[in-house]
């Protein structure tokens, strides 16, 4: 079968099982947009290429399948650079196809020419510039393979216009052997001797903590984590990227650690004698000052990326492998050492029988939880507290609602106050901290899981960065719901200026009503609602949850002075956690 390069590209995407492309056409990608008309793949026309990238990420977050975005050369390609960097930091599998000027024009500063493979070299897991039409099916297969295996990540395929117009004999690689990836062999199974050593450390620990990260979600390992935690009775902290890997309602769940983690999660890690890091990477926002982080803890570190082992903290046992597979190996090793499923007695004479009693540790943890819960104070008739909005939103929405967030105070409150009881229900920009992520990511998530309620919790600053994608959502009938926690400020920056720059507020004020978010929402084809007091919260959420034929935006006018607590100041030890505004420096 003779196909053009453009047809071969679309057919390759079909062969990969792609059901949706988020994109925006332009000159260099024009040939590829023609066969889309004849394809079964749905195309969603975005209003800005950054939106396409974040939609692909949101889709990948909730489905586990790679998100696909397609844009033209030059500015189209550079507009998707931020989503690529975001996906790189958070290990999100997306495949971005960019048009490129004709091979004969490359290097001549042609119209809309940018060497995007060079630009994105450091923010993709890998990228390809196709220079031979016969390579198209193979490179597409390689791109999907690289994006989705090992440590997942973004990839980019750059397709010059003349290659898209050339013709080739269609083929499809029938196996991985036909791919040209001699240097790519991710290891998924853990070294059995190291797994046994990890099991021994687990059975010897008196104050252990499971430090569960986003890698568990990528490995589809939530069930294995549940078995590991309940069998061992070890409490679990779930990182910002790992929220939902272990149910927040479970008594062993301590919630989020880190800079704005809760006191118990932070302090349990600090006092632990064993940290079992599972698909987590000792990010600076988790460790605080590295030299003072969990000083008494032995470390078991499980990661599919060998370079993560020892990058920040040297592990006592380092295991390269897929988090799910290694946890299953650990469970088998614990079984062999006499530790059966939860609530079964340890085999007599086994290593497990000599295991220290965890009861004092769990009692200590419970005492911290009782003494230092998350707190806020919604005064009757007083300013609307963002935490109150989130608690109402959580309690009034379905248990398996997907929550997307932007970056800043609202993101931390959402992570703190939502109750994540299911994996793949939390979509946020963790590593890169990309403001404007929420709206397009929520749209991508809703496309991937149309059966679920999708709420974006956004800040007013973030919303203004990518709100135009609600036009896309209206046009494509993607009924996402947006809760803007509108405090009229770039709130997190304002918080730092209040605490660390002597309340000298520099360029953080945005205004609560410029723009008018309700009118803006309506102009974009959404329902727009405004909430100014606590008693209006529930009725507005009820109304929004009842709308399923178009997007809804609620402008919640929240207290500008509210700050995110607890807080570990940047560069400080986690021991110096500030629990609330009455403690530590400043605050009201």
């Amino acid at each position, binding site marked *: 079968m003779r196909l053009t390069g453009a047809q071969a590209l679309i057919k390759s995407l079909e062969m990969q099982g792609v059901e949706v492309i988020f994109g925006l056409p332009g000159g260099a990608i024009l040939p590829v947009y023609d066969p889309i008309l004849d394809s079964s793949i749905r195309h969603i026309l975005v209003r800005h290429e950054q939106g396409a990238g974040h939609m692909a990420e949101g889709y990948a977050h909730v489905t586990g399948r790679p998100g696909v975005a397609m844009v033209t050369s030059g500015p189209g390609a550079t507009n998707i650079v931020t989503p690529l960097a975001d996906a790189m930091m958070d290990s999100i599998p997306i495949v971005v196809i960019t048009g490129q000027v004709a091979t004969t024009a490359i290097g001549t500063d042609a119209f809309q020419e940018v060497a995007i493979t060079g630009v994105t070299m450091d923010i993709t897991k890998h990228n390809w510039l196709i220079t031979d039409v016969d390579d198209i099916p193979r490179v597409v297969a390689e791109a999907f393979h690289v994006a989705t295996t090992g440590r997942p990540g973004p990839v980019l395929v750059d397709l010059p216009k003349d290659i898209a117009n050339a013709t080739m004999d269609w083929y499809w690689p029938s196996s991985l052997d036909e791919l040209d990836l*001699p240097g790519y062999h991710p290891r998924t199974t853990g070294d059995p001797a190291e797994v046994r050593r990890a099991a021994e450390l687990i059975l010897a620990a008196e104050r252990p903590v499971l430090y569960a990260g986003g890698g568990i979600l990528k490995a589809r390992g939530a069930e294995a984590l549940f078995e590991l935690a309940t069998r061992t009775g070890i409490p679990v902290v779930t990182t910002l990227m790992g929220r939902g890997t272990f149910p927040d309602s479970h008594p062993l769940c301590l919630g989020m650690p880190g800079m704005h983690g809760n006191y118990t999660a932070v302090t349990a890690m600090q006092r632990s004698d064993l940290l079992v890091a599972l698909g987590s990477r000792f990010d600076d926002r988790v460790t605080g000052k590295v030299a003072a982080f969990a000083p008494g803890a032995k470390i078991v570190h499980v990661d599919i990326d060998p370079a993560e082992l020892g990058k920040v903290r040297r592990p006592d046992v380092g295991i390269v492998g897929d988090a799910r597979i290694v946890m299953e190996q650990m469970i088998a090793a614990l079984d062999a050492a006499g530790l059966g499923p939860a609530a079964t007695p340890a085999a007599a004479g086994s290593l497990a029988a000599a295991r220290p009693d965890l009861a004092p540790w769990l009692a200590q943890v419970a005492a911290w939880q009782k003494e230092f819960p998350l707190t806020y104070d919604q005064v009757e008739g007083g300013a609307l507290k963002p935490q109150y909005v989130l608690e109402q939103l959580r309690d009034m929405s379905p248990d398996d609602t997907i929550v997307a967030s932007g970056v800043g105070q609202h993101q931390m409150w959402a992570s703190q106050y939502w109750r994540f009881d299911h994996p793949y229900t939390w979509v946020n920009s963790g590593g890169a901290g990309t403001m404007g992520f929420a709206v397009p990511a929520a749209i991508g998530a809703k496309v991937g899981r149309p059966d679920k309620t999708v709420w974006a919790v956004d800040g007013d600053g973030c919303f203004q960065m990518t709100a135009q994608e609600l036009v896309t959502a209206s046009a494509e009938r993607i009924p996402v719901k947006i809760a803007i926690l509108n405090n009229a400020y770039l709130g997190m920056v304002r918080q730092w200026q209040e605490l660390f720059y002597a309340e000298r507020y520099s360029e953080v004020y945005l205004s609560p009503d410029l723009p008018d978010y309700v009118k803006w929402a309506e102009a974009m084809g959404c329902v727009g609602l405004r909430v100014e007091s606590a008693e209006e919260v529930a009725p507005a959420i009820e109304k929004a949850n009842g709308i399923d034929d178009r997007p809804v935006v609620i402008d919640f006018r929240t207290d500008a002075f509210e700050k995110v607590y607890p807080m570990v100041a940047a560069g400080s030890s986690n021991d110096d956690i500030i629990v609330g505004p009455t403690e530590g420096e400043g605050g009201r």
Partner: protein
Amino acid sequence: MAAGSASPRPRHHIVSALVENKAGVLARVASLFSRRGFNIYSLAVAPTDDERLSRITIVVDVESAPLEQIVRQLDKLINVVDIFELAPEDATEREMLLATVSAAPADRGQVIGLVGVFEGKIVDVGQDRMTVMLAGSPSKIDDFENLIRPYGIVELQRTGRVALPKLARRAARLRSIAGGSTPAPNDNEAG
């Protein structure tokens, strides 16, 4: 053997990477070093006997980052097919130097003499200059460079090192008669 075997751990290690012979691979390697803050001391790239592969020999500054991190991050690059590290004492290293030296007729005999002692070659001769070539271990090249410097170096170019692992030396006469454990190949850095 490198001079100064009694000195503390060497600052430099050799990383030898077998990479796919494709466009942009060197840029990926260089860019990785740049973004991770690793320092390159020298770098040499050339094809191998297999036309699909090239070998990149990088002398890295292990004070800028732990060697293990450098190797593992490099190994993550999709185009890096194989990678190994070489401690200087375990490697056979060679480098080449080309230098154009001022050699007025009065000095010419001395320069030629030096080149002869170091087993180099005179590859070009002008009125009052000559271009000399020397291949050898990096320390030998250093010594030669220092010795010709007083004559006046007009231009000088070094290639950077290439290296291969030293072969295991397990000659029969060195084996323990008592049948004790034989040292592992390359395990000659004790002390």
